[in-house]
């Protein structure tokens, strides 16, 4: 579909065809290979997979970084794990890609139609040249008939995307850009056919009808290809973290299942570092939970048997056995997703530049055409002549360049942003990004890295001991202690017999002394952070404090946005003190702390009510509502799947300093779209009076159409 008729469903008829058509190369299994890049990788992957029993064929697609595997056996599903393991042994990362067996059927369908329209257009134009340069009566008539024989089937085949979209719009009692397009194509082809049958001397409109179809199909294909690239990259990201769960059966056996297969009452085991796939209650084990994705809170919270856990949380230190209470649609996570769904229906009502142009253009063209017919019929009482003029008005005003003007610019800009690591997923995202005046950041994981950093300067000896204890632990505070010791060049003390006590801390022995590093409460102390305590005189407890690390480029990125004239705000679910500290470091004045996900969305809606256009930048589940409510939204690639799917733009590089150039690129693109629409209208300004005066010949129509389409496309690609 072109941007000219965004209200319709994307190519419904081709989707149906794709389902019905037999797939020549059957692919039972699709794996995503994020790291392959060369001929040697292709050969190695294909050789590895072909050597596996149960694989009858494997074909790598380097453009998509995927491998399509045809299984020999009846159960391809069972192969997945073995194949991924075999590829890992050969040195390739691979992930299962769900439902990606579909290849680009709509794209190939459009290409086929473009090919047919192009072939027919060239042949008919060659025949028309003879007629325009004055062929004799019989020859001209013969050429008309041959043109008709080529043009009519070609129009019937190539024009189908427009016809079906126009029919759909008319059934819904709406007008879209495809209605005047279809009318012009059909009238031009029909009247020329009638002319050819009765042997009219006047040249036909076949080439105009075909050129119209050809150029508009190119615009439609550009639009499709641009968004397909972004969609397939987004699917790859989702495959990187397909949620799985380790289910413990009634007989104690454990099996890996997809998270969506869980149901209430199941028992699941979670190892340190696992993300919870469902809501539930802890049956066994103690640990600490990282809830930052749900709440924005950076401090881990301890959890013990009987404690409630929610999907999206990460267990940090201990193994947990969790009884599932709610899974799938009912989880807290899915309820957040509902918030997103309602907001997205509001956003889809945003009408882009092309829509607004079409809304004015489509009725105007029809009125002009009808008026031309009536006026000429009244003046000359010659029905054929009046119809001819009306057709020439419809063909010449037909938004050939207008259909290309917006998709060409958005495709070029989207491709440029893609190379800079920005995935633009939504069709109208560029136009909405160009209007942004307030940029709203989430704190945890967006402005900060999510990793903790040790503050203050603890005594080297204490740091060495703490680092010695912390070496074996995956807790963020432990990692921060080890990193701080490394940064100061302090070797960790040789602590032995390290045991991690989940939910509390780490215990070990140094020489004859027992050492403990953990939550202050566990060591009988007051305070935040982590404490180190030993036995005896040397064992006076030492308290370590932590803060979040700001992303290195955050200060610069915020300054660049402010220099570009945007206001900045910070919304966080975290405690006021840490929010105020980050806001101070970045010089952000509007900072709100301790917000729930609903509060964030409400805050943004309040700004929207004030007439501000907001860009929400966030990565957590607690941001999804806000991402969906905001005028435009952006999520880093490290964000959770729900946040990424709610966002218009995914930042693959994760670098915040890409935001300011992106906004200026979006503004540039919209300026270019307006220019293009202006150019297309300028051609019409010249051509419409000629057409109304009955002076427009098919030659003029062909010239105007091709040159305006070319101008608009060239204007889109120029830097």
């Amino acid at each position, binding site marked *: 579909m072109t941007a000219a008729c965004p209200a319709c469903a994307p190519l419904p008829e081709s989707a149906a065809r794709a389902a019905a058509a037999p797939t*020549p190369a059957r692919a039972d299994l699709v794996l995503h290979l994020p790291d392959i890049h060369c001929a040697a990788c*292709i*050969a190695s992957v294909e050789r590895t997979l072909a050597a596996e029993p149960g694989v009858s064929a494997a074909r790598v697609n*380097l453009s998509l970084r995927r491998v399509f595997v045809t299984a020999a056996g009846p159960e391809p599903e069972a192969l997945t794990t073995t194949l991924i393991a075999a590829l890992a042994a050969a040195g390739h990362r691979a992930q299962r890609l769900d439902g990606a067996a579909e290849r680009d059927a709509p794209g190939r369908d459009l290409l086929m139609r473009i*090919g047919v329209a192009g*072939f027919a257009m*060239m042949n008919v134009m060659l025949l028309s040249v003879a007629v325009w340069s004055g062929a004799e009566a019989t020859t001209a008539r013969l050429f008309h008939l041959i043109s008709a024989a080529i043009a009519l089937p070609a129009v019937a085949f190539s024009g189908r995307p427009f016809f079906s979209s126009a029919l759909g719009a008319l059934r819904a009692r709406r007008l879209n850009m495809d209605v005047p397009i279809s009318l012009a194509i059909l009238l031009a082809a029909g009247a020329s056919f009638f002319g050819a049958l009765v042997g009219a001397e006047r040249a036909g409109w076949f080439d105009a009808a075909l050129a119209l179809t050809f150029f508009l199909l190119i615009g439609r294909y550009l639009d499709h290809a641009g968004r397909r690239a972004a969609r397939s990259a987004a699917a790859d990201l989702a495959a990187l973290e397909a949620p799985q769960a380790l289910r413990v059966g009634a007989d104690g056996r454990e099996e890996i299942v997809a998270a969506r297969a869980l149901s209430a009452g199941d028992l699941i085991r979670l190892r340190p570092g696992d993300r919870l796939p469902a809501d539930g209650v802890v049956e066994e084990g103690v640990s600490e939970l990282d809830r930052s994705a749900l709440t924005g809170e950076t401090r881990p919270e301890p959890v013990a048997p009987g404690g409630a856990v929610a999907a999206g949380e990460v267990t940090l230190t201990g193994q947990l056995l969790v009884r599932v209470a709610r899974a799938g649609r009912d989880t807290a996570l899915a309820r957040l997703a509902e918030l997103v769904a309602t907001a997205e229906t509001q956003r889809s009502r945003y009408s882009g530049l092309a829509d607004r142009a079409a809304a004015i253009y489509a009725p105007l063209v029809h009125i002009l055409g009808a008026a031309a017919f009536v006026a000429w019929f009244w003046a000359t009482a010659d029905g054929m002549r009046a119809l001819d003029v009306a057709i020439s008005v419809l063909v010449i005003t037909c938004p050939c360049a207008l259909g290309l003007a917006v998709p060409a610019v958005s495709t070029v800009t989207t491709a440029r942003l893609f190379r800079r690591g920005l995935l633009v997923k939504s069709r109208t995202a560029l136009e909405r990004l160009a209007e942004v005046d307030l940029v709203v950041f989430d704190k945890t994981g967006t402005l900060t890295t999510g990793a903790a950093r040790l503050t203050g300067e603890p005594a080297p000896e204490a740091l060495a001991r703490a680092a010695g204890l912390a070496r074996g632990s995956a807790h963020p505070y432990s990692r921060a202690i080890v990193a701080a010791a490394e940064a100061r060049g302090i070797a960790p003390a040789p602590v032995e017999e390290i045991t991690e006590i989940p939910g509390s801390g780490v215990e070990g022995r140094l020489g004859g002394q027992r050492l403990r590093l953990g939550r202050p409460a566990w060591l009988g102390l007051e305070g935040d952070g982590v404490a180190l305590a030993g036995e005896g005189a040397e064992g006076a407890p030492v308290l370590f404090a932590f803060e979040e690390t700001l992303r290195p480029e955050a200060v610069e990125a915020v300054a660049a946005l402010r220099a570009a004239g945007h206001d900045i705000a910070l919304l966080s679910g975290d405690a006021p003190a840490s929010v105020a500290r980050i806001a101070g470091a970045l010089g952000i004045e509007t900072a709100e702390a301790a917000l729930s996900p609903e509060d964030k969305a409400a805050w943004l809606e309040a700004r929207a009510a004030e007439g501000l256009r907001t860009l929400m930048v966030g990565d957590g589940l607690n941001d999804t509502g806000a991402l969906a409510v905001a005028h435009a939204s952006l999520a880093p690639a490290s964000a959770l799947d729900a946040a990424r799917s709610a966002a218009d733009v995914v930042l693959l590089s994760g670098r915040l300093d890409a935001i300011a150039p992106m906004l200026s690129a979006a503004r540039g693109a919209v300026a270019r779209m307006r220019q293009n629409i202006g150019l297309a209208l300028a051609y019409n300004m010249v051509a419409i009076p000629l057409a109304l005066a009955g002076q427009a010949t098919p030659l003029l129509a062909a010239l105007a159409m091709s040159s305006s389409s070319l101008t608009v496309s060239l204007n889109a690609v120029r830097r």
Partner: protein
Amino acid sequence: MNVLVLLIPISVGLGLAGLAAFVWSLRARQYDDPEGARARILDDRWDDEPRP
């Protein structure tokens, strides 16, 4: 002008041949993986015997 009887079928036929070649290349998935096609020419697996 009688030569047209020959020339027109020939020119349209040549055009149709081009279209048929395009349709075949599209059906044979020649445009599915442009980057892979660029890389595969460096692949030496099928240098000695053709791919079975």
